[in-house]
């Protein structure tokens, strides 16, 4: 019983905090609007500035249900009376806290206190809505009632669900069937079948060819960004995913590529007017050289030291580009405009051509990365990632291979930088902030370290999702940050882990311990 009350109170407290937070960031009315949209309720009542209260009540009810659901722990199956207690305590506590908050805030509001100087979301319209356009005391009573009732309903519903174990088992078996299926030999042989493979490739190729034609320019633009980030991800994956070197300044190579291309093709500030395809090659080359310059002295550093040094290098590049010192060379903070666009047989690329070019490059990049991964070189990299000391003792020249990884990664970045500048026809120092490096790193890790399909998925999640989340407007970055945390907790191995990584969690743990013990206390 005591645990029941404890669990209930904890759930109530958590929901109350979350709900209060949502009120304070103004999400409650947004959520109510979304609910209204879904249900087709009118947003604004006729000729009044009042919002429909029903939508808000539904949202509160949903939160109440959530409270009830979390009062029961996963996998537990307490008796009914216990469940009753859990639901009640949780709901009452949440309702009491939220009700009190609403009462206090509402009373102040009624007396004419303006909270917006400190909490901009507690404006008159929002507060009036939260008070259901009635008195604070009545409103807080409503909150208490709704939370209690729906928390109880939620708890009971969860219990009922748990009771239906048969259903759950069935689900489980389906789940395991799916996993089995992918593991089965015949599936592998099917995938391994050359004809099947070729057919699949052609089908996907046709799909990829036609998609940009029907998407429209907005989606071509977004998908183009995603494709560029896939290329970046592939490059960083060679460095971080394969060879295990944590590089936080990857943006430096991206910037080098973009600027080399821009300066060689734009009419200002230098008017070199180089052939575009030559410029692409040169940008890649310059990025590789930058990689060499950075890599030779610092690749002996390990782990987080390497991370901060490369981070610093990325910042150095950005600051230098925008500095007064290099303004004559780089055009400073204004950036370079009118960057050359790719031309093929005398015609400037349209967005569709561009998308096709990017797809082609992504395919080529995937192809190269895949082949590298399965080769002697790739094995050497992964060995370095797994245990650098042992890899070297097994005959791998770790320094050489780390530099090779950095150079190849830099080449990818340089190429994507050139494409980026040319597609936007503009490049400026603000495009190369630290967050770009962080985003690309997130792509590599969210997808699953070292996994190639994971990178594609990661790029979609990282660059595509915020665009999709635009509907959430102001809340999209908040949601994105929370999603990152949740994903790391729920699926640390990434969305599409490379082979064998499922048990990798423990493995690397023991490995890191091993590294600590390395300095053998003689």
């Amino acid at each position: 019983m005591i645990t029941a009350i404890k669990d209930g109170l904890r759930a109530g407290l958590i929901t109350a905090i979350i709900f209060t937070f949502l009120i304070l960031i103004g999400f409650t009315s947004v959520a109510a609007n979304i609910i209204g949209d879904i249900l087709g309720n009118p947003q604004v009542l006729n000729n009044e500035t009042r919002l429909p209260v029903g939508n808000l009540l539904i949202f509160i009810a949903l939160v109440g249900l959530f409270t009830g659901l979390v009062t029961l722990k996963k996998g537990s199956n307490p008796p009914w009376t216990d469940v009753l207690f859990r639901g009640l305590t949780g709901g009452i506590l949440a309702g009491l806290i939220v009700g009190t908050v609403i009462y206090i805030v509402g009373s102040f509001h009624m007396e004419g206190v303006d909270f917006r100087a400190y909490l901009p979301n507690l404006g008159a319209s929002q507060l009036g809505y939260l008070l259901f356009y009635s008195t604070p005391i009545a409103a807080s009573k409503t909150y208490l009632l709704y939370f209690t009732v729906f928390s109880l309903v939620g708890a009971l519903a969860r219990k009922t669900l748990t009771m239906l174990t048969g259903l759950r088992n069935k689900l489980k078996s389906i789940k395991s069937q799916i996993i089995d299926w992918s593991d089965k030999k015949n599936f592998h042989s099917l995938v391994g079948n050359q004809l099947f493979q070729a057919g699949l490739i052609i089908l996907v190729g046709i799909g990829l060819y036609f998609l940009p034609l029907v998407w429209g320019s907005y989606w071509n633009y977004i998908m183009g960004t995603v494709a560029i980030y896939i290329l970046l991800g592939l490059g960083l994956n060679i460095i971080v995913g394969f060879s295990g070197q944590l590089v936080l300044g990857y943006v430096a190579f991206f910037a080098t590529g973009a600027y080399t291309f821009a300066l060689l093709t734009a009419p200002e500030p230098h008017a070199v007017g180089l052939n575009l395809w030559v410029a692409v090659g040169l940008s890649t080359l310059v990025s590789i050289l930058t990689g060499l310059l950075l890599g030779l002295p610092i690749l002996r550093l390990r782990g987080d030291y390497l991370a901060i040094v490369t981070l610093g290098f990325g910042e150095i590049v950005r600051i230098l580009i925008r500095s007064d010192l290099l303004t004559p060379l780089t055009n400073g903070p204004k950036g370079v405009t009118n960057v050359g666009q790719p031309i093929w047989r005398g015609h400037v690329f349209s967005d569709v051509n561009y998308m096709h070019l990017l797809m082609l490059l992504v395919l080529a990049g995937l192809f190269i990365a895949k082949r590298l991964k399965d080769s002697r070189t790739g094995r050497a990299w992964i060995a370095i990632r797994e245990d650098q000391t042992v890899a070297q003792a097994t005959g791998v020249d770790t320094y050489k291979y780390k530099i090779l990884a950095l150079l190849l990664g830099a080449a990818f970045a340089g190429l994507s930088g050139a494409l980026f500048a040319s597609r936007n026809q503009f490049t400026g120092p603000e495009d190369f902030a630290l967050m770009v490096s962080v985003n690309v790193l997130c792509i590599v890790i969210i997808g699953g370290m070292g996994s190639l399909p994971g990178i594609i998925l990661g790029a979609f999640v990282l660059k595509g999702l915020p665009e999709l989340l635009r509907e959430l407007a102001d809340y999209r970055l908040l949601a994105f940050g929370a999603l990152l945390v949740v994903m790391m907790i729920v699926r640390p191995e990434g969305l599409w882990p490379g082979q064998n990584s499922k048990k990798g969690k423990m493995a690397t743990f023991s490995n890191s311990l091993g590294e600590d013990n390395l300095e053998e206390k003689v």
Partner: protein
Amino acid sequence: MIKKFQNLNITWGTALRYIAGLIVAVYLLWRILQTTSIQGSYGPDTWMRFLITGLVIGGIYSLIAIGYTLVYGILFMINFAHGEVMMLGTFAGYFVLEAFAAISAPGSGDQSLSLLNAYPFPALVITFFVGASVSALIGYLLEKIAYRPLRGAQRLIPLISAIGASIFLQNAAQLLFGPQRRQYTNPDLLWRGTGWMIPVGEKSVMLTYTGTFSFILSILLMAGLLILVKKTRLGKSMRAVAENKQAAALMGIDVDAVISKTFIISGFLAGAAGVMWGIHNGLFNHYVGFIPGIKAFTAAVLGGVGNIPGAMVGGMLLGLLESLGPAILGIDFQLKDVIAFTILILVLIFRPSGLLGETLKEDKV
């Protein structure tokens, strides 16, 4: 010839390392000689100003850097959200000061005399305490929600989680408090831009009250931390956990509790730094933690990450580098971060574990 090279065990990398080092050293020397020998370059008063401002900022960096170092020492993870922990402390301190400024002092007949100006020092102490405590709480929750479930995962996983937490906290603060810049209401005694005038040469240099206050407070906090780590039971168990988690657990130390406390301490220091930032600088918004966070992380690595005195030295050094570096080298002030990061890279190339970091017995292993 090549064979001889091999026998000397000098690879191209090492050779290049030293050649690059030599070139940089010669260049620096040349620049320094050049700037200091030019007639009519900065007078002693200007140098004094550089020094003072460097020390104040350095103190704040040190406090934040300690947070990074404490967490790194124990969990081997970069707490990317540490800057945001500081930011929330800045906000908390701001609200407390606003409250003090809004309430008029009881007892005195003067309505316009606020509590803040009537009792400036108690008010400031409370502000610091509240700001630091809020940050400590955030640090604790951060560890509990975003990092603890990842204990034992690959090293990059907590880093991504930290990045996510950082994005979340930053945007949460923006949504909660609005995007506008706010300014700390200092007590009149400590108003920004006021201070003692110290004669230096023919001119006089202002030693601001806020700067002096911040600097002294940061030194006190650091001293307190050192005592805590060296002398107390908690400090000992922290060091034990940092050394070897499994062994510490076997010795009966509650590792999770120690980690939680470490986050609380580092959050506390970050919050204090945040309030200091507000009092000294005044302006802040939800973005205030990001740049100091990166800088402090740099400082921590510069001093040797995981090493507490290292973080202090690194922070001070970074502060001084930022203010004195461009002047000494005669480079645009815009490039101060370039100087700071270049020094960092050079230090790490020649001392791969930072200035005070323990050098590995053999860097091959």
